[in-house]
């Protein structure tokens, strides 16, 4: 990761969205990606919340990286993460009440996201502020992208609607909005994206 000085910011963002996509490639944070993605609105809002937390955490930790004592870096990281999550939690409770009622619990659970702590430890604590911020944006966008696409298919197939508006006047596959359907959706999409990148690789060779 030390060579990142030579990598452009755009590459950092792309890396988070495609090459190291939290859900489809690293298979981290699967719990929320199944729990909140049975409708598009919740999926998108959760993605935005994670994007915000990831960027803020990366920036904060990166700016303090020379100040934090290595022995207590994990407790400090957790403190910073939970601080920013609480900020997000309170803001959503005040300004997005309807969505908050449905997903309040999962917002607080962002604290325990492996992906956020992993980026803090692997990237932000070793890099300068700007690359860390862009890494956060990339990882957050990747997560948002994954949640959007999962919740898009789950709501469309399970409820026949999108963002709460009816599209098909039926529930084609009720199981898609149940937890089991979440596993199906994540599994199939993960397979699809891996197949895509495999095809790309074989073409390049």
């Amino acid at each position, binding site marked *: 990761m030390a060579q990142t000085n030579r990598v452009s910011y755009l590459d950092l963002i792309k890396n988070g969205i495609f090459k190291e996509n939290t859900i489809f490639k690293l298979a981290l944070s699967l719990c929320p990606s199944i729990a909140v993605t049975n*409708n598009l609105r919740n999926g998108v809002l959760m993605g935005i919340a994670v994007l915000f937390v990831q960027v803020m955490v990366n920036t904060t930790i990166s700016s303090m990286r020379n100040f934090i004592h290595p*022995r207590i870096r994990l407790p400090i990281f957790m403190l910073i993460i939970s601080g920013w999550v609480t900020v997000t939690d309170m803001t959503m409770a005040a300004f997005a009440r309807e969505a908050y009622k*449905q997903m309040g619990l999962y917002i607080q659970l962002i604290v325990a996201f492996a992906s956020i702590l992993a980026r803090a430890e692997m990237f932000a604590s070793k890099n300068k502020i700007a690359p860390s911020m862009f890494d956060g944006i990339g990882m957050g966008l990747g997560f948002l992208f994954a949640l959007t696409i999962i919740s898009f298919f789950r709501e469309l197939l399970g409820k026949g609607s999108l963002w709460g508006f009816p599209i098909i006047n039926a529930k084609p596959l009720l199981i898609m909005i*149940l937890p089991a359907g979440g596993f199906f959706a994540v599994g199939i999409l993960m397979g699809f994206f891996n197949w895509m990148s495999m095809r790309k690789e074989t073409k390049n060779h």
Partner: protein
Amino acid sequence: MTGKDIVKITLNLVVVYLIGGLILAVVYARTSPIMFKNAIIEKEAALKKLMPDADKIEKMGDWYIHEKHSEYFVAKKGDNIIGYIVQSFGKGYSSYIDTLIAVDNDFRVQRINILGHAETPGLGDEIEADNFINQFKGKDMEHLKVLKTDTTEYIQAISGATISSRAVAEDAVKNGVDFLIKAIKERGAKHGADKQS
């Protein structure tokens, strides 16, 4: 670990806690009034929506269901009582469902409104949907029963969410109306007795 390390670690924690606490305090100070205001507005709007004809909704008292605090209200138009509103809870699949029920003077349900719950998203939360809630209009005590078949006489369960449907119809609404009937009758009896004496 040297003494220097200990000092640095302590300093680390103190600074991070202080800054974090400060940021949280500022955000809380900004958002909590909005949350508080929203909760009040939401409740008032919910009451108003239940009894659109009423121009005054007054609290009558408190009661408890599933050991939860609830309230009941009388709705007036001018000086005439046009109905009552009672708050009630039903034990659902994964939560207690907070419900407001409006009844007319004959204790027939006029409207209900789900204030809060944590039922399964995508299934149980259909109890908030209009086509479930609208079924309650005109139902009296005898007809507050959930059936899994097509029905207009009784309440038709949401497919995949029978427990949540039952919790609303047979627990929250039925017990709420039952309580209301008793409470109003008792009050009326007392009132009558006062008048006689």
